[in-house]
């Protein structure tokens, strides 16, 4: 079965229309936007706060939307019909991932505008955000394969929202509890480090270790997703 762009776009288009009319899911898009608008009006100017909003957007948009798009297909019994169609599973997942990706980039872009955040080096920061988005979409796909309904999806995403959007504050406690130093290696902390170093004018060459760690997360998550996929999609 060959990979077809037409089918992929058909799935993208279908999910886009479905999503715009699904208030339960599209409402979560507003959370990072409202937060960004409020912080922006208050004139807060701190990288940590900016990235709390961005990380929240990554979790609530990239991971959650991807997860609920897959879970809803299962809940409404439409996945079987889709699996029996000529569209391969890869096309289905990529079509959905593409939609989550575009939405995430849009939400982060608008949030950055509201916050008045303009990085020193747009290219490096964008690269970091894009890489992180891929990680969160892989996370969402894995969770979507495990959950059976949108309801379950919105519960299961909660711990991840806490870890990845507020997790950065854990490193403050790291002096007291050394084990929490591990939090520095989470992809969200790495993204913040990239952003901070960019503000100090560091170039891409010195940042490769941070990109490497995020890259490892992406590869790890992709592998986990593959394993879950093999297990779950046999039937």
């Amino acid at each position, binding site marked *: 079965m060959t990979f077809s762009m037409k089918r992929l776009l058909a799935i993208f288009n279908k999910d886009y*229309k479905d999503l715009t009319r699904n208030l339960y899911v599209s409402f979560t898009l507003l959370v990072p936007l409202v937060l960004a608008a409020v912080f922006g009006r208050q004139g807060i100017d701190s990288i940590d706060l900016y990235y709390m909003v961005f990380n929240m957007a990554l979790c609530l948009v990239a991971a959650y939307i991807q997860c609920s798009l897959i879970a809803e297909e299962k809940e409404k019994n439409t996945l079987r019909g889709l699996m029996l169609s000529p569209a391969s599973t890869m096309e289905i997942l990529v079509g959905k991932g593409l939609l989550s990706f575009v939405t995430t980039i849009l939400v982060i872009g608008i949030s950055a505008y509201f916050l008045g955040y303009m990085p020193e080096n747009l290219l490096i920061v964008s690269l970091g955000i894009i890489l992180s988005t891929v990680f969160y979409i892989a996370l969402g796909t894995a969770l979507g394969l495990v959950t059976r309904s949108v309801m379950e999806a919105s519960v299961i995403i909660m711990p991840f929202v806490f870890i990845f959007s507020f997790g950065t504050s854990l490193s403050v406690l790291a002096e007291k509890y050394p084990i929490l130093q591990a939090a520095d290696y989470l992809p969200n902390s790495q993204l913040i480090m990239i952003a901070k170093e960019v503000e100090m004018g560091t170039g891409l060459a010195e940042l490769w270790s941070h990109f490497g760690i995020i890259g490892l997360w992406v590869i790890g998550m992709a592998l986990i997703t593959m394993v879950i996929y093999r297990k779950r999609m046999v039937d």
Partner: protein
Amino acid sequence: MGILRISELEKHNEHTVVFPAFNLEVSEREVVAIHASTNVRTTLLNIIMGGASASNGVVYINNETIEKSRGTFLAKIGGFFLQDGLYERLSVKEHLSFYQSIYGSTLAVDEVIRMVQLEGKRNQRVGKLSFSEQRRIHFSRLLFQNPDFLIFEEPDQNIDLETKRIFLKLVRAIKEKGKAMLVLTGNMESALAITDTVYRLDDKGFHTLDIRAEDNEKDLAEEKSKDELGNDEVIVQPVRFEKIPTKVNEKIVLFDPPEIDYIESSDGQSLIFIKGESYPCMFTMTDLEIRLHPYGFFRCHRSYIVNLQKVREVVTWTRNSFTLVLTDDKKSSIPLSKTKMAELKGMLGLK
């Protein structure tokens, strides 16, 4: 060579037999219905679609089995299942365009909307349609998919007459294109409305349900001999017996003929239907036909006797396929065979 070939397929569940080994071949331009219980139906469907394995036997489609390549095997099957879902937030038109592009079909969306008669609702959301209209959307998927072999699970369960008419019309059109179709249903009437080739599958085996016209004549001969016997009985019995005895939990219950809605024959047992409930009767269909004839009962089909007082509508699907709709609460529908239609017209004075 048949498109679908089932060879020595059987299924046991622990120690119970779901269905014993049977063979079936469905060729081009052929529609075959299997009348089976829910359990047998879902098991058979699961086996064909690769969801469960059979105890023995193989299913071939175009001489290929599911083991060889799951994807290409399933791609050849067009399924019409009860459990299928729809994207409720899409409009009818968007939903069909999605099917069109996912199957890469050249069929125009508007054309299909017209075929399933949803023109007036093209911009309405699928979730707001009635159940029957949603089933039409399911059916439209098969038109875009255009597979060689189609399988229907309870195609006309809970749908309105209009949808059934559209459905039967499209089934005939698909048949003309040289496709093979298999209908799995627990309702004899819906099986008979779609095709003349009906089988019954249960734990006892796979039986042909003979509904060809020649059999009617044989039946008539039988009836004549029974007729004479019946006359003899009347002579012996001085009081004319007017009630119809049925058996309920070892008790014998007597019913007045006008109470009866219709009588169905199932596995050689006649079942009397009264207000939606069925009671097994000790008499054969032929006996009942003779006894009930004076009360305005009519043998409308080899396996059915209907109380003409309770008939509300005679629906014509095609020139050779008819259904009687009754006045009871469930609006039961009963098949009317081609040969009996002329007789009925005579009785109604519509020569």
